[in-house]
Every structure is written in C-alpha cells, then in structure tokens.
C-alpha cells in the first residue's frame, strides 16, 4: 500500500472499519512508515482518553436491584392491570419489527472479499464520510462543477444532473484510486450520500459491469464513453443499481 492511501485510511483502520482485504497492506505499511505509525498511536491514544473521560461514572449501587424490583412488580401484576394501552402495543410491534429488521441487516452484511479497486472505493467513500471532506466544492454556486476540477485533475469528468429524478448533485472532491487522482461527485439520495468516482478508462476493453457489497454499502462499477465509474452508497443493491442507471450505467437498465 502506498503512503497516500495509508494516510487517508488510517482513521478507518483505527476504528477497525477498513475493508478487510486492505488491512494486510495497511499493516505492512505501518511497519515501515515513520509518519503513519505515530499517527495511529495518536488516534488510539485519543480513543483511550475519550473512553476514560466519557465513561468514568459508574451506575449507582442500587440501580440493578431497583430494576429487578420493577420488573418483578410488572410480572406480579394481574394480567388485566398489566395490559398496556392499545397504542403502546401497536408501538411495540413497530419497534420490535424494526429491531428485527436491523438485526437481520447486521447478520447478512458479513463482508466477503471484493475486487481490489472496489475495496479502495469503499474505503475512500467511508473515509470521506467521516472526515468532513465529503465535498470540497458545492454544486449550484453558479460555476459548473467541471470548471473546479480543471487544474486539479488532468481530465474533466462528465457530470450528469439528475435532481428531477431524486438524485441531486451536491458537490465534488478530488479523491484517489490506485494512487491516481480521480473525480468524486457526490449526490444525495434521501438520507444517503452517493460518491460517484470517475476516471478515464485505462484503454483496452471497457470494464465488465460489476457490483460489490460490504457492511451495508453497495458499489456498482461500469464503463461508458471513455470513462470508468464507481458509484457507492449505503443503500441496498437494487437501489444502487437504479442509481447507477440514472448516472449512465446502461447495463443496469
């Protein structure tokens, strides 16, 4: 792993959230890099300090017994008196099914190996989300977003506007895939943010459209018009496919 990638992904690594296929490369880099090692130590130290400062107070001695007593009191009450108001039972059903649904998500999102570039895309998107660097330029402040990339990249990415289809362009940033600067366009989809990575196709046959899933994130990769695209967001695979279609992935039609 190059230093540039390791440096960007270090906070994800410190949180134990990096794509598993990239951790070996990270650990090899950490053994030799004089900058990343101390920085990881600082991040870990930060975590230890926060855990201590924010978790210092212990629960009062009698609390466990009070809770046990309260539960026993609920149990001992006659069924009629214990019955909850109808709306509470209704709410309980909703909460319970929501909890079950989220538990199911947790269970099925165990990660499986993904292709190396997709792993980088996952790391980059997650890193951008946590770093306050999701966008370096905002869309809609008068200038077309392409002009911002001029001088920052050696190509100008095509930009698709899909606000009317519920996929507004929010902004862009420069990100890196495989050591090369690429354009990352950021779109909004309801409560979710989508990163669309764009780079010129490296030549040869266009990439076969592919998709990958990791811990609740989905990624679709395709080629069109001399460019390669990766779209990634924390939405289900079917919606990710739909988003990629809006962004020009004809194979997802």
């Amino acid at each position: 792993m190059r230093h540039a990638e390791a440096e960007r992904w270090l906070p994800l690594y410190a949180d134990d959230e990096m794509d598993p296929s990239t951790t070996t490369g990270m650990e090899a880099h950490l053994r030799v890099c004089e900058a990343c090692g101390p920085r990881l130590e600082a991040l870990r130290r930060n975590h230890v300090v926060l855990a201590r400062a924010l978790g210092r107070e212990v629960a009062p001695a009698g609390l466990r017994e009070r809770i046990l007593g309260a539960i026993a009191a609920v149990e001992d009450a006659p069924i009629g008196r214990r019955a909850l108001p109808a709306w509470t039972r209704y709410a309980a059903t909703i909460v319970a099914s929501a909890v079950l649904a989220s538990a199911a998500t947790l269970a099925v999102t165990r990660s499986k190996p993904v292709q190396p570039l997709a792993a980088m895309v996952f790391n980059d998107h997650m890193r951008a989300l946590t770093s306050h660097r999701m966008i370096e330029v905002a869309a809609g402040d008068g200038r077309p977003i392409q002009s911002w990339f001029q001088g920052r990249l050696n190509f100008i990415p095509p930009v698709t506007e899909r606000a009317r289809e519920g996929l507004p362009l929010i902004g862009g940033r420069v990100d890196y895939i495989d050591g090369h600067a690429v354009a990352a366009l950021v779109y909004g989809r309801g409560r979710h943010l989508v990163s669309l990575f764009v780079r010129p196709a490296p030549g040869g046959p266009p990439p076969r459209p592919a998709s990958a899933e990791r811990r609740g994130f989905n990624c679709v990769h395709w080629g069109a018009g001399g460019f390669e695209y990766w779209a990634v967001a924390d939405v289900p695979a079917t919606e990710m496919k739909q988003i990629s279609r809006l962004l020009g992935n004809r194979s997802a039609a």
Partner: protein
Amino acid sequence: MTQGAKAERFMRLASAHLEAAHNLALWLTGNRSDAEDLTQDAFLRAFRFSDQLRGESAKPWLLKIVRNTHYSRLRNVRFMLRSTTFDDAAGEAEQTPADGNPADDPEDALLRVENDELIRAAMRALPADQRAILVLREVEDMTYNEIAVALDIPIGTVMSRLGRARKLLADRVKNMDQEAAHATRRS
C-alpha cells in the same frame, strides 16, 4: 416460557449492558437522577419486548431502547421543562465544503489536551445526538453497523455524524483550554 423464566433470561442478557445503558442515559439527560429513571424505564420497556432479544445483538438493541425512551420522554412537557438537553434542532447539518485548510487535514480531530474535566465540559455543550454517537463509539467500542442499529440511522449517517462530533469536540476542547489559559494570564 413462564414469567419468572422470562425475567431471568432477560436480566441474564441485559444486565451485562447496565453500565453502558446508564452511561448513555447520563450523557443524554445530563444529570444523575434523570439518568437513573431513564435507565430503569428503558429496561422495563426492553423487558416487555424481550421476546425479540437476541444474545449477540443485545447491546445495540438495548441502547436503542434507551435512546428511544429518552426521546419519547422528551415529548412529555413536564420532563422537557426539567431537561436542559433538548437541543437536537441542530440535527444533521447539510454537507458544507471543507474549509480547505490543509494544515487541519491529517489531524483527524485529535485531542491536544488530555484533561478529563475539560473534555466532559466540552461534551456537555454538544447536541444530544452527537453526545450519543461519541459514547457509543469511544466508550462502548461499538462498530459503525451496531451504532446504525442503536441510533436507527443509515450507516453513512453514522460516519458523517461521528466525524462531525469528533471534530466539534476536539475544537471545543481546544477553545476552552485556550480560554482558560487566557483567563489565568489576565488574573
């Protein structure tokens, strides 16, 4: 299952997370007596739904109930008047462009000052949702996925909220430390 066995099973799975629930309650309510009430209410509520409790995911499940109980109590006016923490209007700020100061870039919201009291004071000034996410990540060591369950938000939102909370906290700690140093010099 008899009621007694149900209570026993529930406490076996849930009581391991009593400290976690109480600490979250403390940061959500901002004071000890409300935190104790909230923890007890949340455990009672959890007990009623305990048929759905799974051993492996008990912690996010339980902490989610703590948070939900807190918000349903906030809707109660009496409780709201006593609480000083109804400050979630800030909510999820929309994405703003980074300030473009490369000097800030690799620092990742590190704390420059390791003063527990200062950190706790800075924490109290954050919105409740940011306090909650910092507690779940830094104290409880929960994964982004578990936090998504506990806070009932998409995992992408977990990451952006966590990033924002860490930065805000580190900035506040730094500012408060500078103010304190300033005040000392003046006196």
